[in-house]
């Protein structure tokens, strides 16, 4: 499965920028996990609990999923959508408390809406 990084109209690549700001050891682990998802695909990632479909009527519209990446230092979430066997990474954040914060979901929803409109 191919993984692509969504960019804004002004060519800003959100998830790349986010990953680039993390500690180098975390970046290495994040790429390692993303490669596993790319290599083994959607079903294997869901079965292994690395990928989760987010609930909620609004989120279901674009079938937004959450990639769960835990490194030695932190826990990260990357929100993404799947279209034609391609995984598009929309938004990433460092996980704090339980649950996915509404504002993060809102950002991902807005980006999913834009991306779907131009695909």
């Amino acid at each position: 499965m191919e993984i692509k990084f969504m960019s804004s109209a002004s060519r800003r690549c959100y998830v790349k920028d986010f990953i680039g700001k993390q500690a180098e050891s975390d970046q290495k682990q994040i790429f390692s996990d993303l490669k596993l998802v790319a290599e083994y695909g959607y079903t294997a990632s869901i079965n292994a609990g690395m990928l989760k479909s987010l609930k909620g009527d609004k989120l279901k519209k674009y079938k937004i999923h959450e990639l769960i990446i835990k490194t030695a230092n932190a826990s990260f979430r990357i929100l993404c959508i799947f279209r034609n066997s391609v995984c598009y990474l929309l938004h990433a954040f460092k996980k704090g408390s339980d649950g996915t914060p509404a504002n993060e979901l809102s950002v991902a929803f807005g980006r999913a809406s834009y991306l779907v409109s131009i695909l």
Partner: protein
Amino acid sequence: MDSLQNLFEVEKELLDKNSILRDEYKKIDLSFEIARMVKEARLVKGYTQGKLADLLTTKQTGISRLERGLSLPSLSFLVKIAEVLGTYIVPPRANSMYVNGSNTVITRQVIVSDLRGVDMYYSINLAAVSSGAYRANLE
């Protein structure tokens, strides 16, 4: 949207820009390597961390710590994990990559230093079919 960067392009761009990240990739980090192998073998088998923990009669948090590179398993526990995941530990004399029939079998080597300071080599044969498309060549 062909203009969107893919995983390989983004990883390469960040590696090109950041020498500390390049050093991190070159570093031999035993915890990371073992974590990656266990996670990959678990993914191939389709087990959650909880299921793997149940089969090993241990706790999910223990598997999580191992996969995050926070703990280093004993060799006997590693053998147990390999058994449960339907794979095995192979000695170092095996090539790091070889072809078995029509499938490419990936074997990652891990170096374990024993108390005498002698390097012992182990590797887990993931028996995973791989396209190798995303394996970055860092040489």
